[in-house]
């Protein structure tokens, strides 16, 4: 921790006092009044930020608050439209990532900036200004990665590597340039709890060595655990700075959102469990492409009245499982049973007519057609479900329009004008629409993949409450999610998917994060293989 750090609360516009009290001889980065516009949207509005040596500095905010935009300016990927950046006291113009790297700023991207078809060494070489000979580079990679407890094999092809190892490549890539500031954008979103612990050890070591870390996250427990200082953005402005160790997750959350977030109320009654609506019996499927995940004897009973959550880190077969249940991927008939009827080989329309509904992970491009209006997007999943949208060959645009109005009202979907194209909606609003479209049918079985990914807190709360309410009204709800907070909030039972194996679903009360983490890291496989 640098000296001269005082806990200060500032409102935007009054950055001067805070900055002065925090900046000093140990200051690495001093951003003053940064502005960035995209068309009409002001993504960053006069942002001030000070990062000192050896500090793990959290950048908090909801989706859309402007965090990624801000750090991209530090990394040279974007040009500021106003304001200035000082590095070690000197004004600098970070024109491109190479310039940032030269200054000593490194970045670990949220969605990784890796090249699948190339080797680990080639990937790292591309980020270094002077990679030198490949054989020397390979040696350096091995020694540095081992040294930090993140061993890598330089000759592996990235496409063959799991997500946790891929992040290591990003980190080692930064470390090889001996950075003074590392920016990490949502690093734990793809890690198991145990892998996250390993990452935190690495970060603490870096901080001790004097390297600063700018840590973007919306995972408040983590931020409390490892960060020394936090800057909170809302709607592109700095609204608070604080010491997260002295705050609670709830206070941090309300600073981020600006109001008390409606907490989701699991129904006070115990769930009334009915008969099994969806059964998966030894569901197995080969990987459709070399990059897909095979499903291995997945078994689950989903009963009326309950919410079952499948936890798992991305890339472990969630998409494939969703497709097998929805019918986009066909399997043997008796592997998927809906209300007692084997339907593994039936298509998605047949399953919808059995009153099942589905919400996929990708809302644009899968759940909805980006360039089509919302009313047309309703026809997408409901053209055969008895909603009077299609008579004979003809589509009733009038009825579609009526349904759009109804869904808009019930689910508080905000839009700039009537019946817009799907892609002009914000992430949260589109997700409300996509979920609302299915809930409007009052389905007996609902399968959702990543219900609140990339969605603002208000919309997320609404969606989660809607899922619980649906279950309590007698339907069966299956939620696949990477967000453990969400899972513990809404699920009655939890199962874990790992490498295409599913663990047995257990009541939430019997589960905790550590157990889930162990299952994510291979416990599910072990169970599955024994079963």
């Amino acid at each position: 921790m640098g000296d001269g750090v005082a806990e200060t609360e500032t409102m935007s516009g009054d950055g001067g006092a805070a900055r002065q009290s925090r900046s000093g001889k140990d200051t690495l980065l001093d951003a003053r009044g940064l502005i960035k516009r995209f068309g009409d949207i002001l993504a960053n509005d006069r942002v001030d930020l000070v990062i000192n040596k050896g500090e793990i500095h959290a950048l908090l905010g909801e989706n859309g608050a402007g965090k990624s935009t801000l750090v991209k300016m530090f990394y040279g990927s974007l040009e500021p439209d106003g304001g200035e950046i000082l590095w070690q006291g000197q004004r600098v113009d970070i024109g491109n990532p190479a310039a940032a790297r030269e200054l000593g700023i490194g970045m670990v991207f949220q969605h990784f900036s890796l090249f699948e078809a190339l080797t680990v060494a080639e990937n790292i070489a591309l980020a270094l200004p002077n990679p030198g000979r490949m054989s020397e580079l390979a040696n350096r990679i091995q020694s540095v990665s081992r040294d930090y407890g993140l061993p890598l094999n330089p000759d592996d092809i990235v496409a063959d590597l799991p997500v946790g190892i891929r992040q290591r490549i990003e980190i080692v890539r930064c470390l090889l340039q001996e950075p003074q500031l590392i920016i990490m954008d949502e690093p734990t979103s793809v890690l198991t709890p145990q892998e996250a612990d390993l990452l935190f050890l690495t970060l603490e070591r870096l901080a001790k060595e004097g390297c600063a870390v700018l840590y973007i996250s919306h995972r408040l427990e983590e931020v409390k655990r490892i960060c020394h200082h936090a800057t909170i953005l809302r709607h592109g402005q700095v609204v608070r700075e604080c010491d997260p160790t002295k705050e609670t997750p709830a206070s941090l959350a309300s600073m981020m959102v600006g109001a008390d977030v409606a907490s989701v109320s699991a129904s006070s009654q115990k769930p009334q469990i009915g008969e099994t609506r969806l059964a998966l019996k030894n569901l197995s499927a080969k990987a459709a492409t070399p990059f897909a995940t095979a499903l291995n004897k997945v078994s689950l009973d989903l009963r009326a009245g309950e919410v079952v959550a499948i936890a798992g880190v991305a890339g472990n077969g969630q998409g494939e499982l969703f497709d097998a249940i929805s019918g986009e991927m066909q399997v043997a008939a008796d592997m998927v049973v809906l209300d007692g009827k084997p339907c593994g080989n039936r298509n998605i329309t047949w399953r919808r007519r059995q009153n099942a509904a589905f919400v996929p992970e990708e809302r644009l491009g899968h759940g909805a057609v980006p360039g089509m209006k919302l009313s047309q997007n309703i026809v997408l999943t409901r053209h055969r479900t008895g909603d009077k949208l299609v008579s004979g060959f003809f589509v009733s645009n009038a009825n579609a329009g009526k349904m759009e109005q109804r869904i808009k009202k019930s689910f508080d979907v905000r839009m700039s004008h009537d019946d817009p194209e799907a892609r002009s909606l914000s992430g949260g609003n589109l997700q409300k629409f996509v979920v609302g479209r299915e809930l409007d049918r009052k389905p007996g079985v609902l399968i959702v993949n990543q219900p609140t990914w990339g969605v603002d807190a208000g919309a997320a709360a609404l969606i989660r409450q809607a899922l619980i309410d649906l279950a309590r009204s007698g339907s069966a709800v299956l939620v696949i999610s990477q967000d453990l907070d969400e899972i513990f909030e809404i699920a009655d039972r939890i199962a874990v998917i790992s490498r295409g194996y599913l663990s047995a679903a257990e009541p939430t009360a019997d589960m905790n994060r550590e157990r889930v983490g162990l299952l994510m890291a291979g416990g599910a496989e072990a169970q599955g293989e024994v079963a």
Partner: protein
Amino acid sequence: MFEAVLLTVITAATPLLIAAIGELVVERSGVLNLGVEGMMIMGAVVGFAVANQTGSGTLGVFAAIAAGMAMSALFGFLVLVLVTNQVATGLALTILGVGFSGLIGEAFIGIPGLKLPDLYIPVLSDIPFFGPVFFQQDALVYVSFALVIAVAYFLFRTRLGLVLRSVGDNHVSAHALGYSVIRIRFAAVLFGGACAGLAGAYMSLAYTPQWVENMTAGRGWIALALVVFSSWLPLRVVIGAYLFGAVSVLNLHAQAVELDIPSQLLSSLPYLATILVLVLISANRRLTLVNTPACLGKPFVPDR
């Protein structure tokens, strides 16, 4: 006799090889340029016209390269700066090229052409059989092989080649790391245009030294198929080009052997063979998925 056949195979294969190696580089950077046929035929007509007007085959060749590059620059502007649909724009390039070449070429129909001279290397060219085949070709045949080796070295042994491959693999990541995706792709597109133009020049100045309307007869399209066939690996392009070269001269030689097969059927063999080859390659899903540059044909708009 075998020697004569082999010589015709070489001349048939060379334009395919040159055009295909150029397009391979373009596709490795993530751009699909379907306009190879249009650029090739413009190279053919411009090369012929300039050689005819100036009396110099060499000037004709350089003019052809310039023509190919000019056309590819137009394509590059649309596809990389205006982000138009790559398939449609490539088609437009071909339609424009074929049309324009017809216009320019009208004045040159029926005029005897300038043939590029064969190189003569003392001693080596005199070796019976091997001499004429390996050491007495016109310069462009040697250029074609040099190109393949240069491209292979560039792509897999140089940093710039690594960067180019990375752009074709994941342009978002390449951009995030600070590489100028558009500039790299533009350079690749220009190189592809130069090669296509050169291949066209070979057609009108060495293969059949004259100008005939539509003389490339789909070779540009076959070159595109060759890139797929080669799984985007330069050395394999040689195999493909020579296989196709062999198939396309069957017609010529069948007549000498007096086979009673309609000449149209023999002429259609290269096209049927292309279809067959494409089916075989694409039927192996794993092979295609693993080797295809992941961003091939995908539009790229940087956020700045």
